[in-house]
Protein backbone atom coordinates (compact mmCIF):
# COMPACT_ATOMS: atom_id res chain seq x y z
CA UNK A 1 0.00 0.00 0.00
CA UNK A 2 2.76 2.46 0.86
CA UNK A 3 6.48 3.15 0.76
CA UNK A 4 8.57 4.86 3.38
CA UNK A 5 8.53 8.64 3.24
CA UNK A 6 11.77 10.15 1.96
CA UNK A 7 10.91 13.85 1.40
CA UNK A 8 8.41 16.34 2.81
CA UNK A 9 4.98 15.74 1.30
CA UNK A 10 1.44 16.01 2.59
CA UNK A 11 1.09 18.85 5.07
CA UNK A 12 4.53 20.04 3.96
CA UNK A 13 3.38 20.41 0.34
CA UNK A 14 4.00 23.76 -1.36
CA UNK A 15 1.20 26.26 -0.84
CA UNK A 16 -0.01 24.85 2.46
CA UNK A 17 0.55 26.63 5.77
CA UNK A 18 4.21 26.12 6.62
CA UNK A 19 4.07 24.18 9.88
CA UNK A 20 6.90 21.77 10.50
CA UNK A 21 5.26 19.73 13.25
CA UNK A 22 3.85 16.33 12.27
CA UNK A 23 0.86 17.18 14.44
CA UNK A 24 -0.09 19.94 16.83
CA UNK A 25 -2.37 17.69 18.84
CA UNK A 26 -1.72 17.92 22.56
CA UNK A 27 -3.91 15.08 23.74
CA UNK A 28 -2.68 11.50 24.14
CA UNK A 29 -3.47 10.60 20.51
CA UNK A 30 -0.97 7.71 20.64
CA UNK A 31 -2.80 5.92 23.45
CA UNK A 32 -5.62 4.37 21.38
CA UNK A 33 -3.37 2.87 18.66
CA UNK A 34 -0.93 1.66 21.30
CA UNK A 35 -3.64 -0.08 23.32
CA UNK A 36 -5.07 -1.58 20.12
CA UNK A 37 -1.62 -2.82 19.11
CA UNK A 38 -0.99 -4.44 22.48
CA UNK A 39 -4.39 -6.09 22.76
CA UNK A 40 -4.51 -7.40 19.19
CA UNK A 41 -0.91 -8.65 19.36
CA UNK A 42 -1.56 -10.36 22.71
CA UNK A 43 -4.68 -12.04 21.34
CA UNK A 44 -2.92 -13.25 18.19
CA UNK A 45 -0.05 -14.68 20.25
CA UNK A 46 -2.47 -16.44 22.62
CA UNK A 47 -4.58 -17.84 19.77
CA UNK A 48 -1.52 -19.01 17.84
CA UNK A 49 -0.13 -20.82 20.86
CA UNK A 50 -3.48 -22.43 21.60
CA UNK A 51 -4.30 -23.68 18.09
CA UNK A 52 -0.92 -25.42 17.92
CA UNK A 53 -1.12 -26.65 21.53
CA UNK A 54 -3.21 -29.65 20.54
CA UNK A 55 -4.20 -30.66 24.07
CA UNK A 56 -6.54 -29.46 26.80
CA UNK A 57 -9.17 -28.44 24.27
CA UNK A 58 -11.95 -30.86 25.15
CA UNK A 59 -13.54 -31.69 28.51
CA UNK A 60 -15.30 -35.03 27.79
CA UNK A 61 -17.45 -35.44 30.90
CA UNK A 62 -18.85 -31.89 30.58
CA UNK A 63 -18.73 -32.02 26.76
CA UNK A 64 -17.00 -28.67 26.42
CA UNK A 65 -15.13 -28.15 23.14
CA UNK A 66 -12.88 -25.12 22.69
CA UNK A 67 -13.94 -22.82 19.81
CA UNK A 68 -10.33 -22.92 18.60
CA UNK A 69 -10.77 -26.65 17.93
CA UNK A 70 -14.23 -26.67 16.38
CA UNK A 71 -14.86 -28.68 14.34
CA UNK A 72 -12.28 -31.29 15.27
CA UNK A 73 -12.15 -33.52 12.18
CA UNK A 74 -8.91 -35.50 12.33
CA UNK A 75 -7.93 -38.87 13.74
CA UNK A 76 -5.78 -36.95 16.20
CA UNK A 77 -8.89 -35.55 17.92
CA UNK A 78 -9.66 -36.66 21.44
CA UNK A 79 -12.44 -39.24 21.76
CA UNK A 80 -15.86 -37.60 21.69
CA UNK A 81 -14.66 -34.28 20.31
CA UNK A 82 -15.13 -35.08 16.61
CA UNK A 83 -18.78 -34.07 16.39
CA UNK A 84 -18.76 -33.97 12.59
CA UNK A 85 -16.83 -37.20 12.20
CA UNK A 86 -13.23 -37.89 11.27
CA UNK A 87 -12.40 -36.52 7.84
CA UNK A 88 -8.62 -36.70 7.92
CA UNK A 89 -5.87 -38.91 9.30
CA UNK A 90 -3.50 -37.84 12.06
CA UNK A 91 -2.32 -34.26 11.87
CA UNK A 92 1.29 -33.31 12.63
CA UNK A 93 1.86 -30.63 15.23
CA UNK A 94 2.19 -27.86 12.63
CA UNK A 95 -1.41 -28.26 11.41
CA UNK A 96 -4.23 -27.02 13.66
CA UNK A 97 -7.02 -29.55 14.20
CA UNK A 98 -9.63 -26.98 13.10
CA UNK A 99 -7.77 -26.25 9.87
CA UNK A 100 -11.01 -26.24 7.87
CA UNK A 101 -12.43 -23.25 9.75
CA UNK A 102 -9.54 -21.21 11.15
CA UNK A 103 -8.35 -19.68 7.83
CA UNK A 104 -11.87 -18.42 7.13
CA UNK A 105 -12.25 -16.98 10.61
CA UNK A 106 -8.89 -15.27 10.25
CA UNK A 107 -9.95 -13.92 6.84
CA UNK A 108 -13.25 -12.73 8.27
CA UNK A 109 -11.61 -10.77 11.06
CA UNK A 110 -8.78 -9.46 8.87
CA UNK A 111 -11.15 -8.13 6.21
CA UNK A 112 -13.70 -6.83 8.75
CA UNK A 113 -14.34 -3.11 8.26
CA UNK A 114 -13.80 -2.43 11.97
CA UNK A 115 -10.56 -4.39 12.29
CA UNK A 116 -9.26 -2.74 9.14
CA UNK A 117 -9.56 0.61 10.85
CA UNK A 118 -7.92 -0.82 13.97
CA UNK A 119 -4.88 -2.37 12.35
CA UNK A 120 -4.38 0.27 9.67
CA UNK A 121 -4.08 2.73 12.53
CA UNK A 122 -2.26 0.65 15.13
CA UNK A 123 0.04 -1.52 13.01
CA UNK A 124 0.48 0.36 9.74
CA UNK A 125 0.15 3.90 11.15
CA UNK A 126 -1.90 4.88 8.13
CA UNK A 127 -2.69 7.16 9.88
CA UNK A 128 -1.83 6.48 13.55
CA UNK A 129 -4.53 8.97 14.61
CA UNK A 130 -6.62 11.69 13.03
CA UNK A 131 -4.61 14.76 11.96
CA UNK A 132 -1.34 12.98 12.76
CA UNK A 133 0.84 12.58 9.67
CA UNK A 134 1.52 9.04 8.56
CA UNK A 135 5.13 7.97 7.94
CA UNK A 136 4.58 6.73 4.37
CA UNK A 137 5.66 8.41 1.19
CA UNK A 138 2.97 7.09 -1.13
CA UNK A 139 -0.46 5.60 -0.74
CA UNK A 140 -2.86 3.63 -2.93
CA UNK A 141 -5.33 2.44 -0.31
CA UNK A 142 -7.29 -0.68 -1.14
CA UNK A 143 -7.03 -0.34 -4.91
CA UNK A 144 -4.22 -2.85 -5.50
CA UNK A 145 -3.17 -6.34 -4.49
CA UNK A 146 -3.03 -7.47 -1.74
CA UNK A 147 -5.44 -5.02 -0.11
CA UNK A 148 -7.94 -5.23 -2.94
CA UNK A 149 -8.73 -8.69 -1.55
CA UNK A 150 -10.55 -6.90 1.29
CA UNK A 151 -13.44 -6.77 -1.19
CA UNK A 152 -13.99 -10.50 -0.57
CA UNK A 153 -15.21 -9.74 2.95
CA UNK A 154 -18.78 -10.86 2.24
CA UNK A 155 -17.60 -14.37 1.34
CA UNK A 156 -15.63 -14.65 4.57
CA UNK A 157 -18.76 -13.44 6.35
CA UNK A 158 -20.86 -16.20 4.81
CA UNK A 159 -18.43 -18.88 5.99
CA UNK A 160 -18.16 -17.21 9.41
CA UNK A 161 -21.96 -17.35 9.75
CA UNK A 162 -21.86 -21.11 9.06
CA UNK A 163 -19.11 -21.49 11.67
CA UNK A 164 -21.26 -19.60 14.17
CA UNK A 165 -23.94 -22.26 13.61
CA UNK A 166 -21.27 -24.83 14.42
CA UNK A 167 -20.35 -22.96 17.61
CA UNK A 168 -24.04 -22.95 18.51
CA UNK A 169 -24.15 -26.72 18.01
CA UNK A 170 -21.13 -27.06 20.32
CA UNK A 171 -23.06 -25.05 22.91
CA UNK A 172 -26.07 -27.36 22.59
CA UNK A 173 -23.75 -30.32 23.14
CA UNK A 174 -22.46 -28.65 26.30
CA UNK A 175 -26.00 -29.03 27.72
CA UNK A 176 -25.67 -32.80 27.22
CA UNK A 177 -22.85 -33.93 29.52
CA UNK A 178 -21.55 -37.46 29.33
CA UNK A 179 -24.04 -40.01 30.75
CA UNK A 180 -26.84 -37.47 31.28
CA UNK A 181 -29.74 -36.22 29.19
CA UNK A 182 -29.30 -32.63 30.37
CA UNK A 183 -26.92 -30.61 32.47
CA UNK A 184 -25.04 -27.39 32.63
CA UNK A 185 -22.20 -25.77 34.46
CA UNK A 186 -20.20 -22.59 34.62
CA UNK A 187 -18.51 -23.63 31.38
CA UNK A 188 -21.88 -23.87 29.65
CA UNK A 189 -22.60 -20.29 30.70
CA UNK A 190 -19.18 -19.16 29.46
CA UNK A 191 -19.83 -20.85 26.09
CA UNK A 192 -23.32 -19.31 25.95
CA UNK A 193 -21.94 -15.81 26.37
CA UNK A 194 -19.28 -16.53 23.75
CA UNK A 195 -21.80 -17.78 21.20
CA UNK A 196 -24.02 -14.76 21.86
CA UNK A 197 -21.09 -12.41 21.27
CA UNK A 198 -20.07 -14.28 18.12
CA UNK A 199 -23.58 -13.93 16.68
CA UNK A 200 -23.81 -10.25 17.64
CA UNK A 201 -20.47 -9.61 15.96
CA UNK A 202 -21.16 -11.74 12.89
CA UNK A 203 -24.68 -10.43 12.23
CA UNK A 204 -23.55 -6.84 12.76
CA UNK A 205 -21.09 -7.14 9.88
CA UNK A 206 -21.23 -4.34 7.30
CA UNK A 207 -21.48 -6.90 4.47
CA UNK A 208 -24.41 -8.56 6.25
CA UNK A 209 -26.04 -5.13 6.52
CA UNK A 210 -25.56 -4.61 2.79
CA UNK A 211 -26.85 -8.04 1.83
CA UNK A 212 -29.86 -7.84 4.16
CA UNK A 213 -31.26 -4.72 2.50
CA UNK A 214 -28.49 -2.13 2.28
CA UNK A 215 -28.19 -2.63 -1.46
CA UNK A 216 -31.87 -1.76 -1.99
CA UNK A 217 -33.11 1.73 -2.82
CA UNK A 218 -36.76 1.01 -2.07
CA UNK A 219 -37.12 -0.22 1.50
CA UNK A 220 -40.88 0.30 1.22
CA UNK A 221 -41.14 -2.51 -1.34
CA UNK A 222 -39.30 -4.98 0.92
CA UNK A 223 -40.70 -4.54 4.45
CA UNK A 224 -39.32 -7.83 5.82
CA UNK A 225 -35.83 -7.17 4.54
CA UNK A 226 -36.07 -3.59 5.82
CA UNK A 227 -37.04 -4.81 9.28
CA UNK A 228 -34.06 -7.21 9.26
CA UNK A 229 -31.84 -4.32 8.11
CA UNK A 230 -32.88 -2.22 11.09
CA UNK A 231 -31.89 -5.06 13.44
CA UNK A 232 -28.59 -5.58 11.67
CA UNK A 233 -28.02 -1.82 11.74
CA UNK A 234 -28.46 -1.83 15.53
CA UNK A 235 -25.74 -4.45 15.84
CA UNK A 236 -23.64 -2.74 13.18
CA UNK A 237 -23.62 0.51 15.16
CA UNK A 238 -21.96 -1.49 17.98
CA UNK A 239 -19.69 -3.52 15.70
CA UNK A 240 -16.50 -2.36 17.39
CA UNK A 241 -17.79 -3.26 20.83
CA UNK A 242 -18.92 -6.70 19.69
CA UNK A 243 -15.64 -7.23 17.81
CA UNK A 244 -13.66 -6.74 21.02
CA UNK A 245 -16.18 -8.54 23.21
CA UNK A 246 -16.14 -11.61 20.98
CA UNK A 247 -12.33 -11.67 20.95
CA UNK A 248 -12.39 -11.57 24.74
CA UNK A 249 -15.03 -14.28 25.09
CA UNK A 250 -13.25 -16.51 22.58
CA UNK A 251 -10.06 -16.38 24.64
CA UNK A 252 -11.97 -16.68 27.90
CA UNK A 253 -13.94 -19.70 26.68
CA UNK A 254 -10.86 -21.43 25.35
CA UNK A 255 -8.91 -20.66 28.52
CA UNK A 256 -11.68 -21.90 30.80
CA UNK A 257 -12.12 -25.13 28.84
CA UNK A 258 -8.34 -25.64 28.86
CA UNK A 259 -8.27 -25.35 32.66
CA UNK A 260 -11.21 -27.76 33.03
CA UNK A 261 -9.80 -30.22 30.48
CA UNK A 262 -6.39 -30.18 32.17
CA UNK A 263 -8.15 -30.76 35.52
CA UNK A 264 -6.58 -27.64 37.00
CA UNK A 265 -10.01 -26.41 38.05
CA UNK A 266 -13.30 -28.24 38.62
CA UNK A 267 -16.28 -26.97 36.70
CA UNK A 268 -19.31 -26.32 38.97
CA UNK A 269 -21.85 -28.50 37.22
CA UNK A 270 -25.44 -29.73 37.58
CA UNK A 271 -26.68 -32.80 35.67
CA UNK A 272 -30.09 -34.44 35.41
Amino acid at each position, binding site marked *: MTTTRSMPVGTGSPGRASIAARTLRKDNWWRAPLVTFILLAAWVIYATVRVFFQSAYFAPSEHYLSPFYSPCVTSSCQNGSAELGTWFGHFPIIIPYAIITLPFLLGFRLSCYYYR*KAYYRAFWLS*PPACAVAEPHGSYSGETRFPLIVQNAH*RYFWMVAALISILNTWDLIQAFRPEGHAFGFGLGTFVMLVNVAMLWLYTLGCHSCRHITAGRL*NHFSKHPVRYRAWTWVSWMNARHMQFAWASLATLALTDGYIALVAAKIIVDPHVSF
Partner: protein
Amino acid sequence: MTYDAHFRVWRGDADGGDLQDFTVEVNEGEVVLDIIHRLQATQANDLAVRWNCKAGKCGSCSAEINGRPRLMCMTRMSNFTEDETVTVTPMRTFPVMKDLVTDVSFNYVKAEQIPAFAPPEGVAPGEYRMAQVDVQRSQEFRKCIECFMCQNVCHVIRDHEENKEAFAGPRFFIRAAELDMHPLDAGTDRAEFARDAQGVGMCNITKCCTEVCPEHIKITDNAIIPMKERVVDRRYDPLTILARKVRGKK
Protein backbone atom coordinates in the same frame (compact mmCIF):
# COMPACT_ATOMS: atom_id res chain seq x y z
CA MET B 1 -15.26 35.13 35.02
CA THR B 2 -12.60 36.81 32.90
CA TYR B 3 -9.02 35.71 32.40
CA ASP B 4 -6.12 36.23 29.99
CA ALA B 5 -5.53 33.26 27.72
CA HIS B 6 -2.37 32.40 25.85
CA PHE B 7 -3.03 31.86 22.13
CA ARG B 8 -0.66 30.75 19.36
CA VAL B 9 -2.11 31.66 15.99
CA TRP B 10 -0.59 30.83 12.62
CA ARG B 11 -0.01 33.93 10.55
CA GLY B 12 1.33 34.06 7.03
CA ASP B 13 0.49 33.14 3.49
CA ALA B 14 1.52 30.67 0.77
CA ASP B 15 5.06 32.02 0.83
CA GLY B 16 5.57 31.28 4.52
CA GLY B 17 4.48 32.08 8.01
CA ASP B 18 4.73 30.97 11.61
CA LEU B 19 2.89 30.58 14.89
CA GLN B 20 2.69 33.88 16.75
CA ASP B 21 1.98 34.28 20.46
CA PHE B 22 -0.82 36.46 21.83
CA THR B 23 -2.39 37.06 25.20
CA VAL B 24 -6.13 37.70 24.83
CA GLU B 25 -8.96 38.34 27.25
CA VAL B 26 -11.52 35.54 27.60
CA ASN B 27 -14.98 35.95 29.14
CA GLU B 28 -17.35 33.30 30.39
CA GLY B 29 -19.37 31.54 27.69
CA GLU B 30 -17.10 32.50 24.82
CA VAL B 31 -15.95 30.30 21.98
CA VAL B 32 -12.63 30.30 20.12
CA LEU B 33 -14.06 32.44 17.31
CA ASP B 34 -14.90 35.16 19.87
CA ILE B 35 -11.28 35.23 20.96
CA ILE B 36 -10.03 35.36 17.38
CA HIS B 37 -12.37 38.29 16.75
CA ARG B 38 -11.11 40.07 19.88
CA LEU B 39 -7.55 39.44 18.77
CA GLN B 40 -8.41 40.90 15.37
CA ALA B 41 -10.07 43.94 16.96
CA THR B 42 -7.38 44.73 19.51
CA GLN B 43 -3.98 43.39 18.46
CA ALA B 44 -3.89 42.07 14.90
CA ASN B 45 -6.23 44.13 12.75
CA ASP B 46 -5.14 42.45 9.53
CA LEU B 47 -5.70 38.89 10.82
CA ALA B 48 -7.63 37.01 8.12
CA VAL B 49 -10.38 34.68 9.30
CA ARG B 50 -13.39 33.29 7.42
CA TRP B 51 -16.64 33.16 9.34
CA ASN B 52 -20.34 33.77 8.89
CA CYS B 53 -23.14 32.33 11.04
CA LYS B 54 -21.43 31.76 14.43
CA ALA B 55 -23.94 28.95 14.93
CA GLY B 56 -22.23 25.89 13.48
CA LYS B 57 -24.40 25.86 10.37
CA CYS B 58 -22.51 27.69 7.66
CA GLY B 59 -19.28 25.69 7.79
CA SER B 60 -17.09 28.74 7.25
CA CYS B 61 -14.87 28.90 10.34
CA SER B 62 -13.18 25.50 10.02
CA ALA B 63 -9.67 25.50 11.46
CA GLU B 64 -7.38 23.33 13.52
CA ILE B 65 -7.46 23.99 17.24
CA ASN B 66 -4.71 22.31 19.20
CA GLY B 67 -4.10 20.23 16.11
CA ARG B 68 -7.66 18.95 15.73
CA PRO B 69 -10.06 20.03 12.98
CA ARG B 70 -12.89 22.01 14.57
CA LEU B 71 -15.36 24.78 13.90
CA MET B 72 -14.07 27.80 15.81
CA CYS B 73 -17.60 28.95 16.55
CA MET B 74 -18.52 25.64 18.17
CA THR B 75 -15.40 25.20 20.30
CA ARG B 76 -16.04 26.53 23.76
CA MET B 77 -13.19 28.11 25.69
CA SER B 78 -14.40 26.15 28.71
CA ASN B 79 -12.87 23.09 27.00
CA PHE B 80 -9.46 24.48 27.93
CA THR B 81 -7.85 25.24 31.26
CA GLU B 82 -6.96 28.85 31.99
CA ASP B 83 -3.23 28.14 31.85
CA GLU B 84 -3.45 26.14 28.63
CA THR B 85 -1.99 27.50 25.40
CA VAL B 86 -4.54 27.30 22.59
CA THR B 87 -3.03 26.83 19.15
CA VAL B 88 -5.09 27.86 16.11
CA THR B 89 -3.95 27.11 12.57
CA PRO B 90 -5.63 27.02 9.18
CA MET B 91 -6.69 23.65 7.76
CA ARG B 92 -3.50 21.92 6.71
CA THR B 93 -4.80 20.02 3.68
CA PHE B 94 -5.67 23.01 1.51
CA PRO B 95 -3.48 25.83 0.18
CA VAL B 96 -3.35 28.75 2.57
CA MET B 97 -4.45 32.17 1.33
CA LYS B 98 -3.76 34.27 4.41
CA ASP B 99 -3.57 33.48 8.12
CA LEU B 100 -6.54 31.22 8.96
CA VAL B 101 -8.13 31.34 5.51
CA THR B 102 -7.52 28.50 3.09
CA ASP B 103 -8.40 28.01 -0.57
CA VAL B 104 -10.99 25.24 -0.55
CA SER B 105 -11.71 25.35 -4.30
CA PHE B 106 -10.49 21.73 -4.57
CA ASN B 107 -13.85 20.78 -3.10
CA TYR B 108 -15.86 22.79 -5.60
CA VAL B 109 -13.98 21.18 -8.47
CA LYS B 110 -14.86 17.74 -7.07
CA ALA B 111 -18.48 18.77 -6.53
CA GLU B 112 -18.80 19.92 -10.11
CA GLN B 113 -17.68 16.55 -11.42
CA ILE B 114 -20.62 14.68 -9.86
CA PRO B 115 -23.46 14.09 -12.35
CA ALA B 116 -26.64 15.76 -11.15
CA PHE B 117 -29.76 14.00 -9.89
CA ALA B 118 -31.77 12.61 -12.80
CA PRO B 119 -35.37 11.45 -12.31
CA PRO B 120 -36.76 8.47 -14.23
CA GLU B 121 -38.11 9.11 -17.70
CA GLY B 122 -41.60 10.49 -17.70
CA VAL B 123 -41.46 11.85 -14.15
CA ALA B 124 -41.42 15.61 -14.12
CA PRO B 125 -40.54 17.90 -11.22
CA GLY B 126 -43.60 18.09 -9.00
CA GLU B 127 -44.46 14.48 -9.70
CA TYR B 128 -41.84 12.95 -7.45
CA ARG B 129 -43.49 10.56 -4.98
CA MET B 130 -41.34 8.77 -2.42
CA ALA B 131 -41.96 6.95 0.84
CA GLN B 132 -40.20 8.49 3.83
CA VAL B 133 -38.55 5.17 4.63
CA ASP B 134 -36.93 5.23 1.18
CA VAL B 135 -35.38 8.68 1.47
CA GLN B 136 -34.35 8.73 5.10
CA ARG B 137 -30.87 7.37 4.44
CA SER B 138 -30.19 10.11 1.90
CA GLN B 139 -31.56 12.74 4.28
CA GLU B 140 -28.79 12.06 6.81
CA PHE B 141 -26.27 13.17 4.21
CA ARG B 142 -28.22 16.35 3.49
CA LYS B 143 -27.20 17.59 6.94
CA CYS B 144 -23.72 18.28 5.58
CA ILE B 145 -22.76 21.96 6.07
CA GLU B 146 -19.71 21.72 3.81
CA CYS B 147 -17.22 22.75 6.44
CA PHE B 148 -14.77 20.42 4.64
CA MET B 149 -13.23 19.23 7.89
CA CYS B 150 -13.74 15.63 6.74
CA GLN B 151 -11.80 16.48 3.60
CA ASN B 152 -9.15 18.21 5.70
CA VAL B 153 -8.60 15.32 8.08
CA CYS B 154 -8.62 12.57 5.45
CA HIS B 155 -5.06 11.28 5.31
CA VAL B 156 -5.44 10.15 1.69
CA ILE B 157 -5.08 13.76 0.57
CA ARG B 158 -3.81 15.41 3.76
CA ASP B 159 -0.65 13.31 3.71
CA HIS B 160 -0.50 12.76 -0.06
CA GLU B 161 -0.99 15.84 -2.21
CA GLU B 162 -0.55 13.70 -5.31
CA ASN B 163 -3.82 11.86 -4.57
CA LYS B 164 -5.98 14.97 -4.94
CA GLU B 165 -6.59 14.34 -8.61
CA ALA B 166 -7.81 10.77 -8.20
CA PHE B 167 -9.58 11.05 -4.85
CA ALA B 168 -12.75 13.03 -4.21
CA GLY B 169 -12.89 12.66 -0.42
CA PRO B 170 -15.53 11.79 2.18
CA ARG B 171 -17.77 14.81 1.59
CA PHE B 172 -18.31 13.67 -2.00
CA PHE B 173 -18.66 10.02 -1.14
CA ILE B 174 -21.69 10.97 0.93
CA ARG B 175 -23.00 12.92 -2.06
CA ALA B 176 -22.53 9.85 -4.25
CA ALA B 177 -24.21 7.67 -1.63
CA GLU B 178 -27.06 10.16 -1.24
CA LEU B 179 -27.79 9.95 -4.96
CA ASP B 180 -27.15 6.23 -5.34
CA MET B 181 -29.55 5.43 -2.47
CA HIS B 182 -32.14 7.88 -3.75
CA PRO B 183 -35.26 6.00 -4.85
CA LEU B 184 -35.79 8.24 -7.88
CA ASP B 185 -32.28 8.78 -9.15
CA ALA B 186 -32.09 7.04 -12.50
CA GLY B 187 -28.98 8.69 -13.85
CA THR B 188 -25.39 7.62 -13.59
CA ASP B 189 -24.31 4.42 -11.88
CA ARG B 190 -23.01 6.14 -8.78
CA ALA B 191 -21.10 3.11 -7.51
CA GLU B 192 -19.11 2.85 -10.73
CA PHE B 193 -18.57 6.60 -10.56
CA ALA B 194 -17.39 6.34 -6.96
CA ARG B 195 -14.88 3.69 -7.96
CA ASP B 196 -13.60 5.10 -11.22
CA ALA B 197 -13.89 8.86 -10.87
CA GLN B 198 -13.91 9.39 -7.11
CA GLY B 199 -11.38 6.79 -5.98
CA VAL B 200 -13.45 5.25 -3.18
CA GLY B 201 -11.08 2.27 -3.21
CA MET B 202 -8.35 4.49 -1.81
CA CYS B 203 -10.28 5.01 1.40
CA ASN B 204 -9.02 2.66 4.08
CA ILE B 205 -11.97 3.44 6.36
CA THR B 206 -9.99 4.75 9.33
CA LYS B 207 -13.01 6.88 10.19
CA CYS B 208 -11.36 10.24 10.87
CA CYS B 209 -14.01 11.89 8.68
CA THR B 210 -16.71 10.55 10.97
CA GLU B 211 -14.80 11.65 14.07
CA VAL B 212 -14.58 15.29 13.01
CA CYS B 213 -18.02 15.76 11.43
CA PRO B 214 -19.79 18.57 13.37
CA GLU B 215 -23.16 17.27 12.12
CA HIS B 216 -22.39 13.78 13.43
CA ILE B 217 -23.04 12.18 10.05
CA LYS B 218 -21.94 8.55 10.11
CA ILE B 219 -19.90 9.12 6.98
CA THR B 220 -17.97 5.86 7.05
CA ASP B 221 -20.62 3.42 8.23
CA ASN B 222 -23.58 4.86 6.36
CA ALA B 223 -22.01 6.19 3.17
CA ILE B 224 -18.48 5.03 2.38
CA ILE B 225 -18.81 1.38 3.40
CA PRO B 226 -22.21 0.98 1.68
CA MET B 227 -20.67 2.50 -1.46
CA LYS B 228 -17.73 0.12 -1.21
CA GLU B 229 -20.18 -2.77 -0.91
CA ARG B 230 -22.10 -1.52 -3.96
CA VAL B 231 -18.80 -1.41 -5.84
CA VAL B 232 -18.19 -5.03 -4.77
CA ASP B 233 -21.62 -5.91 -6.20
CA ARG B 234 -20.59 -4.56 -9.57
CA ARG B 235 -16.90 -5.38 -9.74
CA TYR B 236 -15.69 -8.04 -7.33
CA ASP B 237 -18.53 -10.40 -6.42
CA PRO B 238 -19.01 -12.95 -9.24
CA LEU B 239 -22.42 -13.99 -7.94
CA THR B 240 -23.91 -10.50 -7.93
CA ILE B 241 -22.27 -9.68 -11.25
CA LEU B 242 -23.91 -12.77 -12.74
CA ALA B 243 -27.25 -11.97 -11.10
CA ARG B 244 -27.16 -8.42 -12.47
CA LYS B 245 -26.46 -9.72 -15.95
CA VAL B 246 -29.31 -12.23 -15.74
CA ARG B 247 -31.65 -9.43 -14.68
CA GLY B 248 -30.40 -7.22 -17.48
CA LYS B 249 -28.87 -4.59 -15.20
CA LYS B 250 -25.64 -2.82 -16.10
